[in-house]
């Protein structure tokens, strides 16, 4: 059951099969979630945001694609489900990025809703079936079983991308 706040903000979520899967947490946002990070706010040109070194520090779709490329995403053609790959969709309004969603195993899409931390409860993540609009820039990465959305944490000491902090740099 979605909270009244979520139903008001995202009225199509119920019909979309949406469900809250994680508690609210202001320590990470939608871009971080797509990158597999749960302790940082990924946002460009922001004194209180993290942005990967090497990605353009600007609020453009290209900059978002470059930022997510830093954790392995690469361009693909659409948001259709491809077994073995995770996809991320960069939403924009008037060319300005507003949101990033990521695809889960089976094709459902997952979003971190801002930093949602409301006192007295709130909803941190939603999952739904709806495929991102064609206008979204979609990129993909080979599926990482240790992404938080996939229910497994990367074992300590294991090589590869750390999921609990932004990439070193």
């Amino acid at each position, binding site marked *: 059951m979605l909270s009244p*706040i979520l139903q008001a*903000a995202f009225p199509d979520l119920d019909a979309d099969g949406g469900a809250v899967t994680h508690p609210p947490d*202001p*320590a990470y*946002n*939608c*871009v971080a979630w797509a990158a597999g990070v749960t*302790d*940082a*706010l*990924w*946002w460009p*040109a*922001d*004194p*209180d*945001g*993290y*942005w990967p070194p090497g990605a353009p520090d600007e609020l453009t779709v290209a900059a978002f694609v470059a930022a997510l490329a830093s954790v392995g995403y690469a361009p693909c053609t659409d948001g259709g489900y491809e077994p073995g790959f995770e996809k991320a969709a960069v939403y924009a309004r008037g060319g300005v990025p*507003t*949101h990033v969603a990521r695809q889960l195993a089976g094709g459902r899409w997952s979003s*971190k*809703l*801002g*930093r*949602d*931390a*409301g*006192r007295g409860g*709130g909803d941190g993540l939603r999952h739904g079936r709806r495929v991102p609009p064609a206008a979204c820039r979609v990129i993909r990465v080979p599926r990482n079983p240790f992404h938080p959305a996939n229910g497994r944490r990367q074992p300590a000491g294991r090589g590869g991308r750390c999921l609990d*902090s*932004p990439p070193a740099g």
Partner: protein
Amino acid sequence: MATTTAPPPTLTSRFRTLADEWRAATRFLASPAAAAEHPAYRAVVALGPDVVPLILAELADAPEPWFAALRELTGADPVLPADRGRPRAAADHWLAWGRARGLA
């Protein structure tokens, strides 16, 4: 700079009203800078340095992006460059800063 850890009740009440309004209005925003532009957030800053202990108490509760307000109100920035964009670490730095000054 704030010099007390016990702001007057009227200030506390006004701050809580504004903070609740800001939180509700910006909860789905991904950008800390965009959240800091909200009128309720600006109104908190306009309350002046006496509100710093209240902001630090908020940070102790949840690492919301109060950092821009704290920088504006105090002129300080205790967050290490390596921790920029990491709200929990940034909150820890600010709380340590506040404790050292009797504000948190």
